């Protein structure tokens, strides 16, 4: 029988994968992909818990996470565009004028 734990573990694994992506990616666009992975991992957990409690709140949360993800993409891409116009690259190693 597949229980909540199975889903949660899956979610945890995906979350970790997303984290790895966020931590290692140097290309901003690809880094954003990884954040999507993390949010999706959370969504799975919500949907699963929602299912096993028979409660819709989790689905609601997942729903809003999707909305947030979409908004973030819009703003994030907007930022990337201005940055790209100025810098010509999305490599975040080049993004270090301010430090110390």
């Amino acid at each position: 029988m597949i229980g909540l734990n199975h889903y949660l573990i899956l979610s945890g694994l995906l979350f970790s994968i997303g984290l790895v992506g966020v931590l290692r990616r140097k290309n901003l666009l690809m880094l954003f992909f990884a954040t999507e992975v993390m949010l999706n991992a959370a969504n799975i957990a919500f949907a699963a818990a929602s299912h096993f409690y028979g409660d819709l709140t989790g689905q609601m949360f997942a729903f809003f996470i999707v909305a947030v993800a979409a908004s973030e993409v819009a703003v994030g891409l907007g930022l990337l565009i201005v940055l790209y116009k100025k810098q010509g690259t999305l490599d975040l190693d080049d993004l270090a004028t301010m430090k110390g």
Partner: protein
Amino acid sequence: MYEQIAFYLFSVLTVGLFLVTVLSSNILYAMTSLAAGMVLISGLFFLLGADFLGVVQLIVYVGAVMALYAFAMMFFDASKEIKEKNTSSSLVFLLGGLMAVLLVLMFAAPILGENIQASYPPEVGATNPQAVGLVLFTKYLIPFEVAAVMLLVAMIAGIVLAGKKMDESLTTMDDEEVTLQKDKK
């Protein structure tokens, strides 16, 4: 039985696909596998009876978000192989691995509470979208509206940031230049 098979199938596939997403150095592979993983996740949602969420996942993520990324990818001319320097930090994998171990440990526990009353159970006899709609437009009306504002913000932000006006910066221009530019218009 089929639920188990589906779960394990979807799970293994999503994990694999997302691994490709975060590890591949080809942005096209990464994006494609991300999109595919999201489709599979919507499959998990269906499996969990969250039909509406599954659909939203498909439409919003796979449809809208991925399309945006695709456009962005083209805009940034990133379709070619991307060279990332100093990515193979063992620290990253250590952190990711530790995180995974800890989360698995955490989730392996009997996390499902007993005797917990569902606060918002699906309306009896309603389909999942109906039930979702009922909750969304009563209890979660306010977050819903705020989400609308958020999307509006995102839209304005996207427009403003990507707009032509950002090309020249008043911030770095001297006063004379500002007036000059105004006159030009």
